[in-house]
């Protein structure tokens, strides 16, 4: 945070992602910005809890981090240039080498295990072989009688030699940083305006979005943590500390200008929801002319 390294936010489709776990930790603990984990495991397509990387940031969060000089925006698709032939060949050979290494390590391990087996007991080994032979004969007989005269036994399927190619693990790199053709430097933008000029970022583009950024920033400056508040009928949930440690105290709704009409029904809805969920509702009004955010909290009072 002390002017050392600014966290790279990878922008794709006008959304800011963080793929590096250490960067996520920095953003959360030092920059007090939480974001939302988005990644699911490949085999759990319906997973909706305990999500992993990438972390997606709300646009307000990304704007805050860049404005406070805590992060930079990187045009991620552009940073991945197509690799040259030499680089690709080198990567290919490294990849083959890795597989070879795995296979040889596996074979060495197999050999060790095998020798251990033999040393246990010669008799047991013989017995097992006999047992396996008997079982194989029984199965062969059974197939013959079951199939009857119609089914001709597939000659290829019969005695097949065991597969000799040993299994190996395919390592998929989590981030692109190791690739030689990944060049983020020329596609890095240190200000929101620069990113907007480059056409990779558009937030905030209107009064509502500017108001959201201003309210978010103001609450952040006061030391709060913010999370998404859609579930509780607001724009943000406001936490006094890290959301893993604290319940939120407020739900906040952003009102983009002091002249905006607030429907009585909105006051009723937020009053009711806030009381039911033990949160105070905040109406956060952004006054663009004065550059100030003012807050009004509502509470269910009940008269007579």
């Amino acid at each position, binding site marked *: 945070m002390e002017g050392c390294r600014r966290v790279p936010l990878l922008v794709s489709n006008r959304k800011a992602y963080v793929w590096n776990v250490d960067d996520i930790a920095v953003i959360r603990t030092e920059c007090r910005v939480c974001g939302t984990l988005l990644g699911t495991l490949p085999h759990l397509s319906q997973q*909706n809890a305990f999500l992993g990387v990438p972390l997606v940031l709300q646009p307000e969060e990304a704007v805050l981090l860049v404005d406070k000089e805590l992060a930079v925006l990187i045009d991620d698709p552009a940073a991945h240039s197509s690799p040259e032939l030499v680089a690709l060949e080198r990567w290919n050979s490294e990849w083959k080498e890795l597989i070879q290494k795995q296979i040889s390590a596996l074979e060495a391990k197999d050999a060790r295990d095998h020798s251990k087996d033999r040393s246990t007991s010669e008799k047991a080994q013989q017995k097992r072989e006999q047992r396996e032979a008997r079982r194989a004969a029984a199965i062969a007989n059974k197939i013959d009688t079951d199939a009857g005269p119609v089914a001709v036994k597939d000659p290829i399927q019969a005695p097949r030699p065991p597969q000799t190619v040993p299994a190996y693990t395919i390592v998929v790199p989590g981030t692109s940083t190791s690739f030689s053709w990944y060049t983020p430097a020329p596609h890095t933008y240190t200000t929101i305006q620069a990113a907007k000029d480059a056409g990779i970022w558009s937030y905030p583009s209107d009064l509502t979005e500017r108001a959201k950024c201003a309210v978010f920033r103001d609450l952040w400056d006061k030391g709060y943590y913010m999370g998404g508040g*859609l*579930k509780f009928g607001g724009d943000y949930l406001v936490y006094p500390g890290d959301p893993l440690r604290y319940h939120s105290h407020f739900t906040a709704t952003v009102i983009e200008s002091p002249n905006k009409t607030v429907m009585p*029904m*909105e006051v009723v809805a937020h009053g009711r929801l806030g009381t039911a969920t033990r949160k105070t509702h905040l109406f956060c009004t952004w006054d663009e002319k004065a550059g100030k955010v003012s807050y009004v909290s509502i509470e269910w009072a009940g008269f007579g």
Partner: protein
Amino acid sequence: MIEHQPLPYRPMSRHRRSEGKKGGTRRAENNKIYAHPLPLTFSQTYVTLGLSRHTVLNPCCEGYWDPLTRSVWVTNPKDSATLWQRGFFGKGNISRSEPSWLSRQVNIRKAELSGKVTSEEITAKRREQRKRFKMDRANAIVTAAAEAEEAFRIGKTVTNPIMIPSGATWKPADEAPEKGPSAIPQNHNKQDEGRDGELDDIVDVEHLQLTPQEAFFLIWCFDCLSVLNPQTAEGMPLQEIWLAFQTCYMDPGPSLQLRPDNPFIVNYVAYHHYRSLGWTVKSGVKFCVDYLLYKRGPVFDHAEFALVICPVYEDPADSDSSTLCFRSTQNISWSWLSTVNRVNSQVMKMLILCYVTIPSSVLVSPEMLGSPKCLAYYSVREVTVRRFIPARMRD
């Protein structure tokens, strides 16, 4: 011939059992008070040969139109009792629903005289206690946290932690002494002075307010309400009422052109639709919806359905040219819908989106809008909204 008189006021109660009365008795009583679903009643005149002729008894209520509050004021206590008890029309202007201000005042006076505590006082006292409990709890939490931090700093564990009071364990530290038994003799003194006469001195300042939709339903469908012009105190004809109810929703200006998307008409379409199907329709503003639907009425049960009116324009051009401040379908955001749904599922109400189709202004000219006949061009469709929770709805 039986003349139906509105019965005297009894405090409505749905879930509170008081004065040792059993729920069944209360219910039977309510069944008697609220026996008629509509202000119109029937008399039976027996004729020979077992044939009977029915006569409709019209209560002929009266009210003043007040454009400022967009409501019809029924000031006559008999009329307001009739409209409330037969169909739950209107709302007391200084009561939550039934116009009960006077009887509440009488009860308070009576309680004062006899030295009893009124329910309002009990509520106020409970609120005060809750406030103090919350303060105590907050203080205890702060102290405990400080202690724990201190212990952590030294490297010890807190041996004797402070009890954080819960709602069950907390007791008021000092019961106010003046609220004790000494209060009663003072009241007895009052009684001795013989101020019973005061009960009759209370002037009923409350009136029943009818929304334009309720009023028009009573006028147009049953002809049991006459609306008086507030300036001239003369009865307004139907045509004039229909126009007055529309213009009160429009911006005051020189060119008052009637539009088919007038909030009065759109709301009336929905109101009339559900009233015709036998529901008791009341305002839903306290649950951030447009209307609440009761099977019989607020006295008998909670509303089962919450209604959000979503106007749909047959001709999109009308939507663009609309100057009325009206939440159209396009303006209902996802977050608002989820808010409304959450509020209503918390109170066990089913959320209904009621789509009212507004006919094209080409089809319905301003001249046609000058009469209730134009209502034939409107239609209503309903959609039920319910939140789907995958984990909980499997079985």
